[in-house]
């Protein structure tokens, strides 16, 4: 059982590239989490543990190239190592979709990144789909539907 609280994607320079909240929080709470976690995680050395305790929950993070994937997890419910796998699966899926994904891909295709994430994780923070193939299939279907919509618009 996985119940993520949030997923934040931060560049090495502390710029937020993606935010997804899976629990109800006020705007000030969200701002506080981002403000607290960003410098804390960016300042951590490479050989430090990828799991930290923050407030009433734990935070799991992993760095890929110049991007930090930060996930808030419920202490008693979530498995931290499984969360690392979820992050890795998310990166793998993006990698396959974009073909060696980079920060620029995420900046200019953030809607697609959200689509991939939504296919993988449900709105309550539990895993919806773990198969990369299935996630990519759904996203490709969405792309085709979008393309067909454009065609219909022209034909009509």
């Amino acid at each position, binding site marked *: 059982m996985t119940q993520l609280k949030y997923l934040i994607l931060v560049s090495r320079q502390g710029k937020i590239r993606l935010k997804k909240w899976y629990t109800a929080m006020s705007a000030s709470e969200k701002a506080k989490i981002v403000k607290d976690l960003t410098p804390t995680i960016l300042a951590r*050395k*490479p050989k430090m543990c990828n799991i930290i305790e923050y407030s009433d929950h734990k935070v799991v993070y992993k760095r*890929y*190239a110049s991007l930090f994937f930060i996930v808030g997890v419920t202490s008693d419910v979530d498995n931290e190592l499984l969360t690392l796998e979820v992050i890795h699966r998310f990166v793998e899926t993006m990698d396959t979709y974009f073909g060696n994904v980079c920060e*620029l891909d995420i900046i200019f295709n953030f809607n697609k990144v959200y689509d991939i994430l939504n296919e993988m994780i449900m709105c309550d923070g539990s895993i919806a789909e773990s198969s990369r193939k299935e996630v990519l299939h759904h996203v490709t279907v969405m792309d085709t539907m979008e393309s*067909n919509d*454009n*065609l219909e618009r022209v034909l009509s």
Partner: protein
Amino acid sequence: MCVNVYFLCHFKFVHIYSICENRGEKREVLGRYRIAQPFQGSMHAKNTKLAMNAPEYPQNKILVLSHHSHNFLKTQLLQDLFHCSTTSVSIIKDQTWENKYYKTSFDLYIDSFKDLPVWIEEFVTLECEPLRNVMAGIILITDNRLMAPQELLTQFMTSVHPNTFIVLVNVNKEVEQEEIDELNENRCSSFTNVIEFINWTRSKPTINHNEYGEKLGLDRVQEIIDTHDWLNCKLQPITMIMDKKSKDMPLEQIIKNLQSARIKYKSMENSNEADAFAEEIAEQLSEFL
């Protein structure tokens, strides 16, 4: 520093010009700034505050800076990174920058110094503020064995625009990548700007990626420029450029083709073939949409 900044007040705007001391005739318009408060009474400092934070001016200059002794390396870097063939000038206008998502242009300001602290002292003065505010980034070529530029960063960072990136390119071959990584890890995270230390020597091939899969050397500088938030600059999407290139077919012809495709689609009995045909047409059309 050879770039001086001059103001010319005109109505509610201030036009800012820079003149290179060694090229007195060269005049470069840096930008047009709206004055925060209208002119009322005397030209008091309070009334002449510039609304620097207002999104009025394009932040489209990149300064490439090096010590006099590194001028040759600077030329090499300019060639490798920006494909500049002419490096004898101080300003290269409308340098085109293109990646797979957008195309933009910026001006390259090329300068050199004898003493970096003196240069920075001049750069952080109030009269250079308009110049600092239009800087998208500063690329500083250094020798990490001769000077410790990270110590000067604090002074630098207090004055530059929060959106300006600063890249310190080490050109000393003896400096190992681990040392540069350590500098990047130890740098103060309280700065809002993008600050990075890069290791680069043209003759010594560097490893392209570090343990995180992050690009190194000039590839990383390129990535920093790519992901830079170009304030008030025109970014031309590459798809738009491709559209323009493919617009050799007139609209009437496209509509005719669509109509004939529609008739053909309806006449096709095999639904699989019809769907395949529709998808093919959709792909062709997407180039013109």
